[in-house]
């Protein structure tokens, strides 16, 4: 199996889908956060692949760098929120956080 663009894209798609399904099924806030990480990672795979196999050049890699940075930031913040939530509710079950229910 030779590395190719479509191969990379396929991997990105699988990672993305897994992340989405993870987000949708985890009740644990941290699990949800992991799903997000997976989604971002899938996108990163795509960007890098484009950078490698198309005319995008170095731009794709730089985008993925930014995404990684933002993912880190987001993770930090999300974890802070999760901790806060935990402090307030003594749980991190996101289904309990339904104050926005219409």
């Amino acid at each position, binding site marked *: 199996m030779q590395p190719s663009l479509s191969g990379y894209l396929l991997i990105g798609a699988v990672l993305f889908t897994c992340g*989405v399904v993870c*987000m*949708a*099924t*985890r*009740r644990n806030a941290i699990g*949800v956060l992991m799903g997000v990480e997976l989604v971002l990672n899938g996108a990163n795979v795509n960007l890098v692949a484009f950078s490698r196999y198309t005319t995008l050049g170095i731009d794709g890699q730089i985008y993925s760098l930014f995404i990684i940075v933002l993912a880190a930031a987001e993770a930090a913040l999300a974890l802070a929120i999760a901790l806060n939530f935990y402090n307030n509710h003594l749980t991190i079950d*996101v*289904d309990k*956080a*339904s*104050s*926005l*229910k*219409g």
Partner: protein
Amino acid sequence: MGDTLKTLLMIAWLLPLFGFAVEILWGPRGDRRTTRWPAWMAVACIGSGFLCSLSALLIWGSGTDWAVLQSHDSHDAGHAAPSDTHHEGVEPQEHPAHESAQQNPIRPTAPVRANDAARWHLTTAADGHASDAHQNAHTAAGHTDSPSDSAASSHGQVPLVYHGTIYRLAAFGSLILSIDYYIDSLTLVMFTMVTLIATCIHLFAIGYMSDELTDEYVDHFVHTSDGGHLHRQGRFYRFFAFLSLFCFSMLGLVLAGNIFQVFIFWELVGICSYLLIGFYTERHSASTAANKAFIMNRVGDFGFLIGLMVIWTWFGTFQFSDLFASLPRDDAGRVVTGEYGEVALALPDGSSKQIPYTLLVVAGLGVFAGCIGKSAQFPLQTWLPDAMEGPTPVSALVHSATMVAAGVYLTGRFYPMFVPEVLLVIAYIGAVTLFLAATIAVVATDIKKVLAYSTISQLGYMVLGLGVFGWAAGLFHLITHAFFKSLMFLCSGSVIHGCHHEQEMTRMGGLRHRMPITAFTMLVGVIAIAGLSIPGLIAFSGYHSKDAIVATALAFIQANPGHFLLFLLPLLTAGITAFYMFRLWFMTFAGEPRDAHVYDHAHESPWIMTLPLLILAPLAAFCATGGEDGLLYRLLAGSEPNYVAAGVSSTASGLTLPGHHAIHEVHSTAGTWALVAAIAGTLLAWVLYGTKAVRVEDMKRQMAGLHRFLTHKWYFDELYDALFVQPVHQVARFFAWIDRTLIDGIVHFAARLTVLASRWDRLFDELFIDGLVNLVGRATFSVGRSFHVVQTGRLRQYVMFIVVGVVALFAVLFTTFPR
């Protein structure tokens, strides 16, 4: 000379106005109410006016070397005396003169308007057959201011006309309206007559109105609501102020140089008449009579106005001289008509214009309608008897001598503009009027009413005279009538004063013992109006003037036999006139007193009232002395339009208008008939009222129907009330109803409709538009509400939704845009 005359007459004209202003403004204050000075002021004004007028007449006469009289001398020579009938032999010799006059028609030169510059020119040839008058005329012309440019056109002119403008009222391009003067012998005679009679009446009024000289006048004819008589302040000054204003207006009317100006003063005398009739403002009958007089005059003036409109539109001028010059007449005096009955006017500015002949008739009838109103002719005669509500001097001055004669004066003044058809109408109106009024006078018992009807009747005579082409005859009667009728009115005033405001003749009788001067002067007037005379020896003025009219009428019906009524009626009425006038005299002054109370308190009037009687009596008797050869007639005839003398034969309408010659032929015949009728009337009156040989009451009973008909004045008042007054009120109420109900109704309906529409609008607004808005809001809300179940607040579901959404979006994209 023109300037002199103008100045004198204008002084005579304006002095009363000055007097009026002073009296009305200064009179009512404080104790001035009880002084006589307003009266003396008025007398001074009008007296000075008389002196001015008289001197103007004399200046005019001497300025022309009395050419009027001299020119008639030849005429005289031709017809030595009226009763002399040998003049028929002279006729053939006169014809050449006729012819030459016709071959050289005297056309006035195209007048150039001159402001304030008296110009004179030749308008008339007083007597076409006076062949040797030519010389005199030339002499006359030589004596006047400047040689006439038209004197060369020669034939026998005599009278001078001075006319010019006093000031301009307005000018619109070529249309100019101004206050003018027009002075000829007629003007001068009228001025003299009016001022003289007015002076006498002013004097009389000082006595007659003296009971107004108080602060506490008791009017016995007015009852107040508490049952007593009305007490009010005296109004002596006001009476004389109004008299002065009237004199001013009347003189302005006579002096007027254009028909519009005549209309102005026409209305002014009308309002003076209104004020004077309604002098006793508290009496309802008086104010009603005043209204009636003015409104009926206005009806006539409506016609006058139509005449004015026609004249103004077609002639573009109102000045007598221009109008007369504009209307083309051929040598025989016929109005020249074109192929289609149009008349080519020669306008003063040199242009020409075609006027339909019918419009000339309309113009003439219109102007004459004014005369009908003012001179109380049929069918507008009913106001004059009612006008006797005014004080007696007013009746004497305004409603017999001057104002009511103004209609006749205007007919005479405007004579050249009347085409034969109009003249025929004039004649018939005069004939109907004189008969109708005389019959009513026969049964009237109020002494002033008798005189009033007599006045109407006599005015009818004048109008008839003018209508049958007796220009000078009609105006002659105007002057003589003015004298004797004012005399009689003053006499009746004296009687009323002497009997303490008793006017019913049925309560008088035998008063000649109590008031001899009045009785005697009244008798003079009665004889004068009755037309009695001893032929060849003595004849009072009425005889001469009435004679002239009857003669003209006879000549007229000889030429136009179909119109025999025009002679028959005046002849018959001559008898009736004599009858009712003598009836009046007998009932009042002769016989036994019918009412002892009245008789016992009757007394002769003071000198200030009898003096005017004594002045007027000789004038009434002898002013016309000499008849058609006398001074007065000649003076008047001097202003006669030039085509009148020769007569006009067979005009377009088939009428033949008699000339002087034709009239002369029948003069003695007519005179005899008239005299017979008068004597018959007199005798009848004497038999019925003087001798008591026949009981009048029996006659009344036998002819009760006729009597009632006459005492109700032929039911004219009732007729007019039913025909005009009530309908006018109905229409007025109807129009007011339309206004309040229909038009305002529409407005209100529109308003209500608007309100209704607004209500609907409001409903629409509240229900529909607001509803729609609310619906949108509610729908949005409920839709949002319905989505709230989606808004679970659960993070994971949201993720699912996003994913499902993306999937759905992709599905849509792929299915919609397949590769």
